[in-house]
C-alpha cells in the first residue's frame, strides 16, 4: 500500500515537473534576479555596479515616471469603465429575442478576435487627420471637423481609448454567459410583484451580474495598465509624451537605453501599482459584488 503511495508521489512530481522546472527557471529565478537587478546599475557592457536604492530614488525624481503613471491611469480610468458599461449594454441587447443570434454575435465579437500590430496599423490609418475614415464620418454624420488624432497632444490618448472599445466583444461574450445564468424565475417573480423593467434591471440583473462585472473590471484594469502595442506602434509615446504609457517607458529604458537596473525598478513599480489596485478592488468587492453561495440568511 505504502509502495503504491510512494509511486504515485513520484509519478505526480514527475508529471508536474515540466511546469516546476519552467517555473523555477523562467519565473521564480527571474523574479529574484529582478529584485537584485533593481539594486544595480548595468548597461550589459560594463560589469553591474551595486547602487542600493538609487534606482528607486531616481524614479521619485523622474518627471517621465509621473507622466507615464498619469497617462496609464487616465487611460485605465476611462477605457475600463466604458468597456464595462458598453459590454453590458451590448450583451443586454444581444440577450433579447433577436434573429439570427449567431450573426449578431459574430459581428460584435469579431473585432475582439483580431488584435496586435495589424490592428494598431489599421487604426493609425483610420485616425489619419486628413484622409482618415473617422474624420470623414464626423463630417458626414455630425458636420464636425475632426482633430488630427494621433499627432494632437489632446486627442492621442482619447484615440487609443476609442480603439480599445472596438474590442468590446470580449466583455460582451462573458456578460452574455452571465446573463444566461440568471434564473428566469427571478424575473417572472418580479414581474408578478409588479416590478417594471428598470426595477428588474437594478434589483435582479445588476446584483446577479456583479461577479461577472467584477471579473471584467479586474481583468480590464490589469490589461489596461500593461498596454504597450498601441502606443509603441501608433504614437511612439508622443506627441510630447501624451501617450507615454508606463510599459512603454519601461521598454525604452530596458531595451533602447539598456538600463537594466532602472528598467527592473520600473517593472516593480508597475507590479506594485497593479497589485495595490487589484487589492483595493478585491476589498471593495464585498460591498457590491453579490455571490449566491455566500448568501446571508435572514
Amino acid at each position: 500500500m505504502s509502495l503504491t503511495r510512494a509511486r504515485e508521489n513520484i509519478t505526480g512530481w514527475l508529471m508536474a515537473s515540466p511546469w516546476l522546472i519552467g517555473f523555477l527557471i523562467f519565473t521564480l529565478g527571474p523574479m529574484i534576479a529582478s529584485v537584485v537587478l533593481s539594486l544595480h546599475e548595468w548597461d550589459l557592457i560594463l560589469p553591474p555596479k551595486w547602487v542600493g536604492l538609487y534606482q528607486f530614488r531616481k524614479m521619485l525624481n523622474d518627471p517621465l515616471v509621473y507622466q507615464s503613471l498619469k497617462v496609464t491611469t487616465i487611460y485605465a480610468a476611462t477605457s475600463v469603465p466604458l468597456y464595462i458599461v458598453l459590454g453590458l449594454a451590448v450583451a443586454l441587447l444581444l440577450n433579447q429575442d433577436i434573429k439570427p443570434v449567431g450573426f449578431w454575435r459574430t459581428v460584435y465579437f469579431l473585432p475582439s478576435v483580431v488584435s496586435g500590430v495589424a490592428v494598431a496599423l489599421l487604426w493609425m490609418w483610420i485616425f489619419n487627420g486628413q484622409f482618415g475614415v473617422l474624420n470623414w464620418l464626423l463630417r458626414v454624420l455630425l458636420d464636425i471637423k475632426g482633430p488630427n488624432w494621433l499627432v494632437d497632444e489632446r486627442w492621442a490618448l482619447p484615440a487609443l481609448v476609442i480603439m480599445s472599445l472596438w474590442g468590446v466583444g470580449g466583455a460582451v461574450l462573458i456578460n452574455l454567459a452571465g446573463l444566461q445564468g440568471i434564473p428566469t424565475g427571478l424575473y417572472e417573480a418580479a414581474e408578478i410583484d409588479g416590478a417594471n423593467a428598470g426595477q428588474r434591471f437594478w434589483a435582479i440583473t445588476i446584483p446577479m451580474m456583479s461577479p461577472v462585472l467584477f471579473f471584467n473590471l479586474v481583468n480590464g484594469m490589469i490589461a489596461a495598465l500593461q498596454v504597450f502595442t498601441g502606443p509603441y506602434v501608433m504614437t511612439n509615446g508622443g506627441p510630447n509624451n501624451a501617450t507615454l504609457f508606463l510599459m512603454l517607458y519601461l521598454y525604452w529604458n530596458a531595451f533602447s537605453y539598456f538600463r537594466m537596473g532602472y528598467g527592473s525598478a520600473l517593472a516593480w513599480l508597475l507590479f506594485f501599482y497593479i497589485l495595490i489596485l487589484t487589492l483595493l478592488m478585491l476589498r471593495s468587492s464585498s460591498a457590491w459584488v453579490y455571490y449566491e453561495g455566500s448568501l446571508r440568511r435572514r
Partner: protein
Amino acid sequence: MQVSTVRGTRRAVWAPLQSRRYRRYITLAVIYAVLVVGAFFLMIPFAWMVSTSLKDPGSIFAFPPKWIPNPVMWSNYIEALTMPDYPFGLFFRNTLIITGGCMVGQLVAASLVGYSFARLRWVGRDVLFLVVLSTMMLPPQVTMIPRFILFRELGWINTFKPLIIPVILGGSPFTIFLMRQFFLTIPLELDEAAKIDGCGPLSIYARIILPLSRPVMATVMVFTFLWNWNDFVGPLIYLNEREKMTLAVALSLFKYSPEGPTRWHYLMVVSLLTMAPLIIIFFFAQRYFVQGIVFTGVKG
C-alpha cells in the same frame, strides 16, 4: 369557485396583453436599430481596410474618401507579397513555426501537468497548485528583463527558443488551470476501472483522459494560436534580425516606408493578411473560442 377566479384573472389579463405585445414589437424594432448602428461602426474598420488595400496609390489620399476602389488593384496583393524589402512569406513562416511550436508544447506539457494536479495524489500538490494560480496574476513585465539577460547569456537571441521553450516547460499557468478543471469533470470511476485492469498513471492519462478531452484541447489550441500569433513584446525583444522576425514585428517596421508617404495600400494588404488566419480560425472554431472565454469569465 377556484376555477372562476382563474378565468376572471385571465380575462382581466387579456386586454393589457395586447398592448404589451404591441410594445414588445416597438422594443424589438429599437433593439434592431441600435444593433444595426453598432454593427455599422464595428464593421467600418474592416471595410476601410479592404477598400484601401484595393486602391491605387493616387486615390488613397482623397477626401472625402472613395469607398469603391476604381480601378480595383488586385495587383496590390501580389506586389505587397513580393516586395524585396519585405519577405512576407518568410515572416509568415517564422510566425507559423513559433505558434505551432507553442501549440504542441502547450498540449503536451499543460495536459501532463494538469493531469498530475487533477488526478494524482502527491505531497505538496495543493501548495504548488496555489503557486500556479498566483503566477497567473503575475504581470510578465517583472520577469521580462532577467529573462532577456538569461536568454542573451544562453545565446538564444535571434532564435525562436526564448519564445517556444518557456511555453513547452509548463506552458502558461492559465492553460494548466484550464486543463485541470476539465480533467476534474471526468468521472474518477474510469480511472479506478483502468487501475483494476492494470493501467498505470501514464496509460490512464494517454488512454482515458486524453481521448475524453478533445473539447478542452481544442480550446487550448485556439487560445494558444491567438496569443502567439498576436504576440508582440516577446518577438520584439528577442528577434532583431530580419530573417527571424515574426509578422507582428515586421509589420511594426513596415510603417516606416523607405521613400515618400506611407504606403497605406500595401500596409492594409499586409495587415489584412496578418489578421486573416485569426478570422478564419474564429469562424471555424467559434464554439471552442466562446467556451474558453466563457470559462475564464464565469468560472475563473
